[in-house]
């Protein structure tokens, strides 16, 4: 029986939502293609990760837990995963389109001489072929591709599938045939951003500011608005104009040359809505635009718009959201 394998993105032994979404997507796909869902995780001190995966809806969890894999190594992780794939006869292999997924999956695909659709927003099984649809040209078009041979690989855009759930998967401990002396590129250090911040791509709400804020210190308006949603809910984003001006760090940039986000709610404050910015946020579930120019292109792309001065609207909105939340 052919399996749908999900490769977990586990950092510091933790499984985050995009991996659980990938298991959800795999179950959905297995419903059409047959086969069962196997999750593979590589890392160190994986007890919590194994538990989370066992309750994610997978039928089986394969864990390669060794000190060798305490830190990420693209070549090392790929090799460990390839060793496990050999026994699993995968028909399809899925992973979230996270920094790790983007780095690792093409490497695995190349070793398997297999097709990969990255950043997929839909998966297909037609006839006996797997395939996927993904945004191309920065979301200006969607491309559907079908595999011409097996296995088929895809990385999945976060926030696009329901997280899987279930319980009681069989958990198998496996090991790698090699040690840390075989690893080449190795992560030496992970410098975390302020811990009270939700990562931009995982946030349910993103409040992004642009040149309309007029000066770096005015980003306080955006930060306060984000904070109004309560702890751990909203992240702050920025347009390229303000990143290039040095007001905000590049890691906050949303758009074609920044990050692609798809939160439930995206609030664009003082952002005109240039095509390259839209590329990074147009698949958000709901888009709110705050802009003083009624003709700003962002109003064409938003669900709700409010024409006016950000300096008045942001504080009022923050208060109203706090009130609505409590």
């Amino acid at each position: 029986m052919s399996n749908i394998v999900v490769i977990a993105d586990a950092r510091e032994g933790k499984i985050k939502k995009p991996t659980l979404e990938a298991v959800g997507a795999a179950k959905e796909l297995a419903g059409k293609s047959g086969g069962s869902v196997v999750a593979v995780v590589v890392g160190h001190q994986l007890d919590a990760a194994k538990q989370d995966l066992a309750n994610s809806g997978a039928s089986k969890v394969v864990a390669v837990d060794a000190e060798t894999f305490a830190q990420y190594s693209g070549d090392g992780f790929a090799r460990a995963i390839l060793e496990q794939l050999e026994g699993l006869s995968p028909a399809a292999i899925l992973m979230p389109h996270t920094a790790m997924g983007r780095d690792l999956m093409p490497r695995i695909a190349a070793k398997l001489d297999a097709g990969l659709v990255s950043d997929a927003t839909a998966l297909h099984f037609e006839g006996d072929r797997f395939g996927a649809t993904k945004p191309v040209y920065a979301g200006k078009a969607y491309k559907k591709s079908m595999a011409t041979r097996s296995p088929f690989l895809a990385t999945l855009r976060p926030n696009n599938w329901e997280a899987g759930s279930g319980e009681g998967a069989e958990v198998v401990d496996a090991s790698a045939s090699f040690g840390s002396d075989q690893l080449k590129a190795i992560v030496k250090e992970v410098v975390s951003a302020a811990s009270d911040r939700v990562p931009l791509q995982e946030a349910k709400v993103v409040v992004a500011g642009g040149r309309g804020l007029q000066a770096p210190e005015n980003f306080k308006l955006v930060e306060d608005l984000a904070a109004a949603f309560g702890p751990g809910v909203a992240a702050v984003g920025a347009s390229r104009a303000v990143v290039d001006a040095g007001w905000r760090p590049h890691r906050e940039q949303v758009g074609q040359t920044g990050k692609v986000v798809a939160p439930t709610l995206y609030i664009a404050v003082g952002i005109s809505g240039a095509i390259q910015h839209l590329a990074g946020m147009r698949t958000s579930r709901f888009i709110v635009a705050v802009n003083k120019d009624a003709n700003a292109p962002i109003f064409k792309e938003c669900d709700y718009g409010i024409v006016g001065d950000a300096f008045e609207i942001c504080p009022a909105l923050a208060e109203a959201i706090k009130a609505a939340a409590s």
Partner: protein
Amino acid sequence: MDIVVCVKRVPATDSKIKVGADGKSIDPAGIEFVLNPYDEFAVEEAIKTRETLGSGSVTVITLGTGDSQKELRTCLAMGADKAVLLDASGLPGGGAGLDACATARIVADHVKGIPHDAVFCGRQAVDGDDSQFPSRLAALLDLPCVTEVAKLELSDGRYRAERDIEGAREVVDCPTPCVISTNKGLNEPRYANLKGIMAAKKKPLETIAVSAAEPATETTGLELPPERSGGKIVDSVSDLVAALKNEAKVL
């Protein structure tokens, strides 16, 4: 240090995309093509390395058709030493059916024959937005790889590379030879000046006809997303919050 830089010709980021008659590819009419913006960082980093070390070479390579000579010349004008065009125009559809799997295989086969202490790529080509090629190339060449690099330092033949991941920054130690894919923030790509443009005309640009590689995926359709009809303009903050709460149900 000899560095190979993989580059691609892509539509400018502000292009209006229309679906072509085949329903699978874009209609190129009226589109301006440019060097992939992320590849500018890769070319800049390679030239800077040669300048800093005072030795070595920078070879740019692309798999494309004759049109891509323009982007290769741009790289030469920036300061690359030589260019290689892997010409796919003899393949069915001018190479239109090549996917990431086949592309990486063809380029890897040729990069093997060029001395390289490092191979630089952009983090993603802004046409297919694949971000697959660099890791695939590394696997095929059996090299280590660091993708989406925002800071890069070389000492004693090893790279210290920094890359942003969700909520943090990773510092990666990587031996050479290796593959590096470049992100925005790594450097400020230089513009080609007139002197560079003149010099580029005399630099070697080799064209090699490539033979087919079996793609692992086929494109079956290309569609434009449904157009957004434009948002509902609300009059006040309280109307907005009411809409978010009652209609969108996001509060």
